[in-house]
């Protein structure tokens, strides 16, 4: 190496050291992190190109349709004697099992214990979200009728028919018995859609990853596949609590048992969140109120609720969900993991480094061998340093280097110890 190159190397090292000192004091990376993580998920470029072409074609078709058919007034919906507003929740109890009536004659009867929400209403039909329970749906056939019933990760598209449908969120079990007409059911194990004909019953479970279509009341025929047979058995056991109990004639039609199909987008906030669409998921949660969602969520859903709020850039809501998880499921692995998530919110989104340090310590005390223990220890060190506790940060740095000599926080640890 020439003398000039050597001098340039020394000059470069000095510049780099100065930059590293400045970067060690810079707290602004957290804001970029929130922006990167909260950004909506996008498809790869080639998919986007196709998507653009499809979107343009759809736009052209939509313009043509608009010119051909003038928009009509939206349908009306009512609950007993009063109008039912879009977004309104309807709950059915033993004493009061309400019927939702639509102005085109269509009707939805909720079974006791069921909850549903009218998501949209337009000239062609409505979108009803059945959160849990069962419903008897009758859609009056008419020109361009378009109704959709969403149940967790499943969706039923209807043009004119009568069916019983149910969903049990605890095990994501979906059941549908079609009495008249034709429906298309999509989501989860059903992929982009399966058509059901009158007299058929569909049972599907995201949890077991299988679905079964049989004629109304038919017995399940054992599948050649042991795994499939086991799943059918699981479905048969599960269905006792949720399947319609309507008696029907025997049929020789064998059930269809299918393995997992590609997952398709569904409309629940959970599915949106699992797809990484945190802003959309948060918007859906917000429509009913975040507090309502927290009150209603299971322990597993609380963790997802917290993550959704965190990635959507809503730290206060995220903390609410994680704290609820810690109090409701105290001592569980999920509650311990929530301590780590709380720490991250304080660190990344609130710049509350003392609080972040407290929660990273809590996580490490509760789950010292947890998967993110190395990261927790590294970030504890950073939190203490940023909170001004140099002695504490140095102590953690020493321990960090002993355990993770080449970990991602190695440089920070060495800098802390060299001061």
């Amino acid at each position: 190496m020439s003398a000039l190159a050597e001098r340039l190397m020394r000059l470069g090292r000095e510049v780099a050291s100065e930059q590293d000192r400045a970067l060690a004091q810079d707290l602004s990376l957290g804001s970029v992190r929130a922006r990167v993580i909260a950004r909506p998920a996008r498809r790869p470029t080639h998919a986007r190109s196709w998507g653009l072409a499809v979107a343009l074609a759809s736009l052209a078709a939509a313009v043509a349709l608009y010119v051909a058919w003038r928009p009509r007034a939206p349908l009306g919906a009512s609950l007993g004697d009063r109008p039912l507003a879009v977004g309104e929740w309807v709950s059915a109890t033993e004493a009061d099992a309400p019927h939702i009536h639509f102005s085109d004659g269509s009707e939805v009867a909720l079974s006791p214990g069921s909850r549903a929400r009218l998501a949209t209403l337009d000239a062609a039909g409505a979108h009803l979200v059945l959160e849990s329970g069962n419903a008897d749906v009758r859609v009056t056939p008419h020109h361009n009728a378009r109704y959709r019933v969403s149940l967790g990760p499943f969706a039923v598209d209807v043009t004119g028919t009568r069916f019983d449908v149910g969903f049990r969120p605890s095990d994501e079990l979906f059941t549908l018995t079609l009495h008249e007409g034709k429906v298309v059911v999509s989501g989860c194990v059903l992929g982009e859609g399966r058509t059901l004909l009158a007299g058929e019953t569909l049972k599907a479970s995201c949890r077991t990853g299988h679905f079964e279509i049989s004629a109304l009341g038919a017995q399940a025929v054992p599948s050649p596949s042991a795994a499939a047979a086991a799943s059918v058995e699981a479905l048969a056991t599960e269905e006792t609590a949720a399947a319609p109990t309507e008696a029907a004639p025997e049929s020789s039609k064998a059930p269809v048992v299918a393995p997992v199909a590609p997952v398709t987008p569904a409309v629940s906030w959970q599915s949106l969140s699992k797809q990484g669409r945190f802003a959309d998921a948060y918007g859906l949660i917000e429509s009913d109120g975040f507090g309502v969602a927290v009150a209603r969520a299971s322990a597993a859903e609380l963790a997802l609720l917290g993550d959704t709020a965190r990635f959507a850039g809503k730290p206060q809501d995220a903390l609410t969900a994680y704290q609820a998880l810690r109090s409701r499921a105290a001592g569980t692995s999920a509650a311990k993991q929530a301590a780590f998530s709380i720490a991250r919110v304080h660190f990344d989104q609130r710049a509350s480094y003392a609080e972040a340090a407290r929660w990273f310590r809590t996580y490490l005390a509760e789950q010292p061998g947890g998967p993110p223990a190395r990261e927790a220890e590294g970030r504890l060190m950073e939190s203490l340093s940023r909170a001004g506790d140099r002695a504490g940060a140095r102590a953690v740095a020493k321990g960090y280097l002993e355990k993770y000599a080449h970990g991602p926080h190695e440089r920070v640890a060495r800098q802390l110890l060299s001061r």
Partner: protein
Amino acid sequence: MAKKDAQALAELLPLRKSQAELPAPESDEVLVLALRARHPDAGTQLFDRYAPHVRRVLVRVMGPDSEILDLVHDVFVTALESVHRLMDPKALRAWLTQIAVFTARARIRRRVRGRILRFLPFGDLPEPELPPADFEASQAMQAVYRVLDGLDTDQRIAFALRFIAGMELTEVAASCNVSLATIKRRLARAQGTFGAAAEREPALAEWLAGRATDAVESEAP
């Protein structure tokens, strides 16, 4: 691709269906699979693991610059959108370095074009905003980047990666996606141009004459 990667990920990680949190994967390979499977936590973990490195590369190339954070953002958005193109998941760090280098290169070139436009006879063109430093830099550092601003963009990047980031020649070549011979040529030219331009910078005179470096070395224990 996403489904295939999800299956591969499931084989590598004991994920439950309801599990929202991705256990911190030890290897880049697992992290890449998680990214391709669009696991909700994968982007966070990619950022947590590599944002400091990406920012450091950008700072080395750009110097004190108010747009560093925007560039970090751009690098991760590019990475998340094109992770399916990464051929070797084990080369994640090098791949991110390359994206960072090319992101910085595009920004520098845009600024250079802005400077050229100012000399064209279009009086109504807006003046490009020159970014202020995001931290107080020493005179030597300011002088280094002033000189680098005058270099050809590719030479500047090669110089910054080799002399400031301290990369090996092969790393510099890989980060710039060119051959070793090309990088050697660029570095030779950059070194000459930098040396000549630095003579006009008093803050660098001592460094290049060796006096400052000698003084630093004599202070060392």
